């Protein structure tokens, strides 16, 4: 498919390009289809339906069907058989075909014959590209060792390569943005409290109260999760949202707590201390399942309503109101664990405090509480075997970040690469991640990349990081390849218990020279002396190997319209040995506080505001910036600024603005102001992921502002090594 049109022309005709059907053909189609060349036929008319699609416009993985006309995908819809998303998909899901047919997508293997950061691309063959990747990685490993390779993966297609580099090649220097810049701190804080990562497993649909701290459901859209939330509201749940900003969720809330950023843990401690002092907690549950409650009570006893109110800058009466509401509705309370939790570098304790709050309410295994669905079991695993190199991760060697998620905390890898100490990191594999916009302090990321002997990137789009690649490989998109299975249960636990199994299957063939992850990694493995370790020959084999032990296959899934359904199990109830570690002795042994503890964040310097960022329902960070439909829906990220502050500065809604941070870094692009009473005076907010710099992103380049560019003050959570990204301060400037 060639696009020999200008960008403007493309934008105008984009929808026709996607359908790619000559109008004359529609006009002569059979009766029942629109006869007019001026009337689009509709996705349902004269199309074939492809099943087995699983969305990856974000990572929730809704199940899809695709409408196909003349071998082109014209529309994506939710799979009507789905008990997860149903026929619904979100804006991003609906826009998948604009990623699929984006003319800016990577098409061929490319070699950078310019310099890193200012690339000049030369098209090369797959053989040449793979040979060069193999040679360069081999040379680096031979000269140093396997740990000289740093890897930055993201997304489901990055799993197979990640396991290869981690297990078989043997480098511990792997940093997943989804952990160290997102969920890692949440997962490990709950793990150290209740023995399991929480996911977003709260039964909001059946809750009496939903308590969200920083959760902005609606701006953060994951379909079945949003359904749970909305069902809960429809069923009359009270909604408490704690956020410095009047977010989409705050707008639907019964109580909006306009908290001072960074003080969340203090707020939760204040609530818990009030509950202890007034006996308003689930004593039976705490007696049966609590560990270290006495030490915990003692540790939080100073958090009076007055002290909490002062620290959090919220009225005492409101803290009491929230505590009373939660206590009165225990145990049917959804204490939401959140998702993106890399906020302030004090986040481990916030996660712990939330898990403890759920413990005090006994909100586990009961309607409305924390409940994990009982999904289908018995699937196979495809694993790369251990190779002969084994290296301890940097943080393990240094004895720091002892509660770190798997992989190595990002800053340690980056610092090690820049300084060469304790060892050189000279080769870099980036797979589906865009570290330019995931990791704070871009300057360091560039330094890290510039000192490498070799950098390779695999992606579907020319994101900013790809400008730093020596070899750039085009990957099949989620609509063109097989991939991991998605399984689960119906989202509303008050419905009939059911389980589902689906697997990502291609809906259309990959165009140009795009290849899937298994092909690429296997070819690298062959060139790196690991041919014998290859666990599966094709991505199809991988999926079948996983399905087989459960008595399923790709063929069977296709025959069942892409989704296998089977009877489910009641997910409610808690095991007798379930424990809530209110006070965790293991943490004490590691040198950390045993009880959730508030650590204050630096105050906002005079004349500045704290930069907050979050989600938009139209974009998945930077990944969707070049999508013409999503760009049209939200071309840039408005800067939320308090109306009193704006009035002093003479800024009105819609005015062009830019920002400079407290370290003098100025945003390289602009956006418009959203002047509102719905945000505190000491902070500004914008959606994350905008302001791409790569000119190859003809739609997304320079659209809106990149919050990450302004995050130059590094803060790291001492327990987990996760980045804190809300400790940067900015001045708003009229642009």
């Amino acid at each position, binding site marked *: 498919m060639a696009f020999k049109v200008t960008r403007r022309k493309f*934008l*105008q*005709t*984009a*929808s*026709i390009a*996607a*359908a790619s059907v000559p109008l004359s053909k529609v006009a002569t189609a059979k009766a029942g289809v*629109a006869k*007019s*060349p*001026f*009337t*689009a036929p*509709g*996705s*349902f*008319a004269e199309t074939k339906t492809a099943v087995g699609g699983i969305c990856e416009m974000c990572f929730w993985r809704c199940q899809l069907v695709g409408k196909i006309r003349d071998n082109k995908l014209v*529309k*994506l*819809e*939710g799979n009507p058989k789905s008990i997860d*998303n149903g*026929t*619904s*998909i*979100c*804006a991003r*899901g*609906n*826009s998948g*075909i*604009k990623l699929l047919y984006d003319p800016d997508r990577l098409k061929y293997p490319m070699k950078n014959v310019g310099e890193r950061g200012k690339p000049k691309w030369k098209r090369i063959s797959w053989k040449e590209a793979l040979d060069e990747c193999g040679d360069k990685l081999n040379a680096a490993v031979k000269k140093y060792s396997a740990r000289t390779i740093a890897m930055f993966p993201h997304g489901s297609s990055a799993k197979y390569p990640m396991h290869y580099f981690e297990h078989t090649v043997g480098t511990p220097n792997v940093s997943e943005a989804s952990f160290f810049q997102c969920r890692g701190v949440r997962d490990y804080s709950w793990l150290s409290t209740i023995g399991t990562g929480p996911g977003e497993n709260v039964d909001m649909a059946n809750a009496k109260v939903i308590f969200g701290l920083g959760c902005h*459901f*609606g*701006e953060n*859209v994951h*379909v079945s999760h*949003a*359904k749970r939330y*909305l069902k809960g*509201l*429809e069923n009359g749940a009270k909604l408490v949202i704690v956020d410095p900003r*009047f977010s*989409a969720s*705050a*707008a*639907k809330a019964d109580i909006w707590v306009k908290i001072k950023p960074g003080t969340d843990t203090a707020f939760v401690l204040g609530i818990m201390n009030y509950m202890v002092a007034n006996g308003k907690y689930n004593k039976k549950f705490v007696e049966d399942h609590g560990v270290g409650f006495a030490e915990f009570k003692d540790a939080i006893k100073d958090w009076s309503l007055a002290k909490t109110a002062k620290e959090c800058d919220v009225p005492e009466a409101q803290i009491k109101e929230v505590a009373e509401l939660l206590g009165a509705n225990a145990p049917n309370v959804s204490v939401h664990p959140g998702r993106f939790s890399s906020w302030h570098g004090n986040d481990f304790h916030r996660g712990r405090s939330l898990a403890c709050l759920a413990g005090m309410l006994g909100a586990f295994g009961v309607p409305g509480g924390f409940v994990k669905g009982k999904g289908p079991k018995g699937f196979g695993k495809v694993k790369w075997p251990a190779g002969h190199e084994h290296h301890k991760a940097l943080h393990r060697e240094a004895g720091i970040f002892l509660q770190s998620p798997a992989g190595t905390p990002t800053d340690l890898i980056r610092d090690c690469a820049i300084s060469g100490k304790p060892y050189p990191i000279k080769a870099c594999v980036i797979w589906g991640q865009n570290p330019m916009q995931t990791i704070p302090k871009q300057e360091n990321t560039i330094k890290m990349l510039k000192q490498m002997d070799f950098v390779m990137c695999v992606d579907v789009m020319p994101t900013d990081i790809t400008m730093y690649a020596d070899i750039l490989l085009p990957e099949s998109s989620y609509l063109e390849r097989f991939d991991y299975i998605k399984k689960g249960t119906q989202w509303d636990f008050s419905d009939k218990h059911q389980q589902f199994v689906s697997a990502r299957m291609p809906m259309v063939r990959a165009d140009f020279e795009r290849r899937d992850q298994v092909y690429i990694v296997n070819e690298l493995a062959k060139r790196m002396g690991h041919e014998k370790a290859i666990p599966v020959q094709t991505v199809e084999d991988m999926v079948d190997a996983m399905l087989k032990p459960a008595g399923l296959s790709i063929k069977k899934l296709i025959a069942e319209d892409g989704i296998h359904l089977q009877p489910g199990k009641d997910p409610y109830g808690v095991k007798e040995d379930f424990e809530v570690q209110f006070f965790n002795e293991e943490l004490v042994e590691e040198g950390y506080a045993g009880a959730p503890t508030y650590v204050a964040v630096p105050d906002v310097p005079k004349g500045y505001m704290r930069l907050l960022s979050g989600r938009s*329902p*139209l974009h998945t960070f930077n990944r969707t910036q070049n999508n*013409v*439909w*999503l*760009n*049209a*829906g939200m071309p840039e990220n408005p800067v939320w600024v308090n109306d009193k502050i704006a009035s002093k500065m003479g800024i009105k809604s819609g005015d062009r603005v830019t920002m400079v941070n407290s370290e003098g870094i100025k945003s390289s692009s602009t956006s418009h102001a959203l002047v*509102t*009473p*719905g*945000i505190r005076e000491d902070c500004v907010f914008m959606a994350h992921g905008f302001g791409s710099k790569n000119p190859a992103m003809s739609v997304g380049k320079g659209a809106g502002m990149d919050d990450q560019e302004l995050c130059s003050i590094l803060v790291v959570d001492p327990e987990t090594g996760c980045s804190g990204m809300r400790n940067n301060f900015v001045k708003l400037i009229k642009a």
Partner: protein
Amino acid sequence: MQYAMVIDLNKCVGCHACTIACKAEWDVPADKGRNWVKRLGPAQTPEGLASTYYPGLCNHCDSPACVPVCPADPIQKTFKDARTGKTTTLEVAATYKEPFNGTVQVDKERCLGCGECASACPYGARYVNENQINEELGSDGTIDKCTYCMPRVNAGLDPACVQTCLAGARIFGDITDPNSEVSRYKKMGAKNLSSTAVNIGSNGYYYANKRDDSLLRSTSTPTVMASVNHRRQLLARMKPMMNKAKNLGMLGLVGAVAVKGMSDDKE
């Protein structure tokens, strides 16, 4: 029968799935829309701080402002009731109100693309699709707007926006049927966006809590009916004729200049 759409703003999360499903379904150009979602606020209202959305679309009005201004030559058109099979013949221009289901539709073959109906619509629900140029009529494009997905509905499907809505916030049905879900919402207090000046029987209803309702109505209720531009109507009406003449080479130099002048006359 009169089809209608209710948007339950207590459910809507402003995710835009509706707008994009519509684009995919009907090949709507990326920068245009048959429907839209505008985020409102956060702003102070007399009912308190509010933030909500204005998901808008053609309201298939009882007295549509767009229909009488269409300059296309009227023709006799026979309509058939999808349910009863009953037929009726009406004289219609290129945009008309369907007599059986109450939807407002466009006959794209005969649309001159003058945009007069788009200017007349107080809700801004129509746009000229410049990708669809009817060369025979010499048009600059063809009017496009929400059809309430009648081709889908006639095939037994939900409108594309309703099908994809994860919140179940879009409720579609017959407002003249007292037992329909849309009628139930109307009884609960769902109201259309009307003002003293714009009161043309919109069939788009919004249901919201007090603060959101206040914000929606204060920001998004149309208050002005457009006045009709007779000159443009006249030019549009002349254009097919002039164009034909131009194509046939029947016009002299003066005529050709005049035609060119008209083509450039985009307001």
